[in-house]
C-alpha cells in the first residue's frame, strides 16, 4: 500500500517536473531575444540592480534636479508643466522614438527633451551627449523601468522604421560589415573575447564602463559605426532615429532596464 502510494506520488512529481520543463522550453523556444544584461558578468548585473551602486543613478539624481529647475526665457521648469515625473513620464521611454504632438518629424527621447526646451521653455538646445541632456533622459527613462517596450502604432512611423531596417541590413565601412552580420547572424558568439550582444536597446541611456560615463543609443550606434570603419552620421542626422525606431520595434515587449550598466 505504502509502496503504491509512493509510486503514485513519484509519478505525479515526474509528471509535474516534465510539464514544468516543457513550459520552460516553450518559453525559451518562442523568444530567443536576450538583453545584453544576461550576457554580463554577475558583478555587473548586481551593479545595475543596486540603485546605490549603479553609477547611472547619479545621473538620474542630477536629472531630477534639472527637472525641477526653471530654464530659458519662459522661466518654466519641466515640473511646471509635467508635474511629478513618476506619473507623467511613466512609459514614455518605452515608446519613443515617436512623433510628438504637432511635430512633422519623429524624434528620440533626447530630441523630445530638446523640443520641449526650445518650444516651451524657450531655452537653448542642450548639446548632444551633454551631461544635462543625458541626466534628464536618464531621469525620464528611469520612470519606465520594468515596463515592456511598446512602440506606438503610428502609421507615419512605418516608412522610417523600414528605412531603419534598411540601414541595419546594408554593408558599410572599410570592413564592409552590416549590423545584421554581427548582431543577428553571429550574436552570442565571441568577438575578441567579448560576447556579441543582440543589440536590444533595453537600458538606454547606459552607463558604459568603457566610457566611464553615461551615453545615449546615438553614442552606442556611432561607436559601432566607427568600429566597422564607416563614417558616423552627423549628430543631428535622422538615421539615428530611424535605427532607433527599428531597434525598439525589434525589442518590442522586452523590459526597460534604464539606466543600464554595460561593460
Amino acid at each position, binding site marked *: 500500500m505504502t509502496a503504491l502510494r509512493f509510486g503514485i506520488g513519484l509519478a505525479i512529481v515526474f509528471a509535474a517536473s516534465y510539464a514544468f520543463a516543457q513550459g520552460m522550453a516553450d518559453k525559451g523556444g518562442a523568444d530567443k531575444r536576450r538583453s545584453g544584461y544576461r550576457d554580463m558578468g554577475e558583478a555587473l548585473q548586481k551593479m545595475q540592480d543596486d540603485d*546605490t551602486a549603479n553609477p547611472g543613478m*547619479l545621473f538620474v539624481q542630477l536629472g531630477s534636479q534639472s527637472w525641477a529647475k526653471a530654464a530659458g526665457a519662459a522661466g518654466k521648469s519641466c515640473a511646471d508643466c509635467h508635474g511629478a515625473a513618476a506619473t507623467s513620464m511613466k512609459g514614455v521611454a518605452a515608446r519613443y522614438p515617436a512623433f510628438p504632438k504637432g511635430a512633422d518629424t519623429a524624434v528620440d527621447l533626447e530630441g523630445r527633451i530638446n523640443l520641449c526646451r526650445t518650444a516651451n521653455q524657450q531655452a537653448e538646445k542642450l548639446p548632444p551627449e551633454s551631461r544635462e541632456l543625458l541626466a534628464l533622459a536618464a531621469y525620464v527613462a528611469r520612470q519606465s523601468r520594468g515596463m515592456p517596450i511598446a512602440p506606438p502604432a503610428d502609421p507615419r512611423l512605418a516608412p522610417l522604421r523600414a528605412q531603419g531596417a534598411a540601414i541595419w541590413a546594408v554593408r558599410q565601412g572599410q570592413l564592409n560589415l552590416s549590423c545584421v552580420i554581427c548582431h543577428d547572424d553571429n550574436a552570442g558568439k565571441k568577438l575578441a573575447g567579448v560576447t556579441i550582444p543582440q543589440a536590444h536597446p533595453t537600458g538606454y541611456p547606459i552607463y558604459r564602463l568603457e566610457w566611464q560615463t553615461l551615453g545615449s543609443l546615438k553614442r552606442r550606434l556611432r561607436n559601432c559605426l566607427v568600429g566597422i570603419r564607416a563614417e558616423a552620421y552627423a549628430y543631428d542626422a535622422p538615421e539615428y532615429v530611424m535605427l532607433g525606431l527599428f531597434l525598439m520595434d525589434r525589442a518590442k515587449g522586452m523590459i526597460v532596464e534604464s539606466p543600464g550598466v554595460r561593460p
Partner: protein
Amino acid sequence: MADVLVNAPKTAKRGAVVEIKALILHPMETGFRPGPNGRIIPRNIIERFTATWNDAEIFSMDMSPAISANPFVSFFAVAAESGVVRLRWTGDEGFVVEEQVAIAVE
C-alpha cells in the same frame, strides 16, 4: 557640482557589522591624457576619502589616478553606538564634498 549616493542601514543592532557604500560623481582625470588641442589635461582626481562615526575615524583611503571615474567605495564598520557617519572626499582643484548619514543603534 558633485553628487553622491550613500547606502547605509538606518538602524543596526549593537555590535553588528554594517556595510556602508558610497558612490560619487567625479571625472577622475588622470593627468596623463592629451586633450583635443594636444596638451595634457591637468590631473583632477579625488585624493582622499575618509569616514568618521561620531567624529572617530573608521575608514580612510588615498585614491590614485588609476581609479576609474565615479569611484564606488564600500567598507564595513562595527555599530557601537547611535550616531552620525560623516563621509568626506577631498581632491584636486579644491574639491571637497561632505555627506552624512545617521545610524540608530539599538
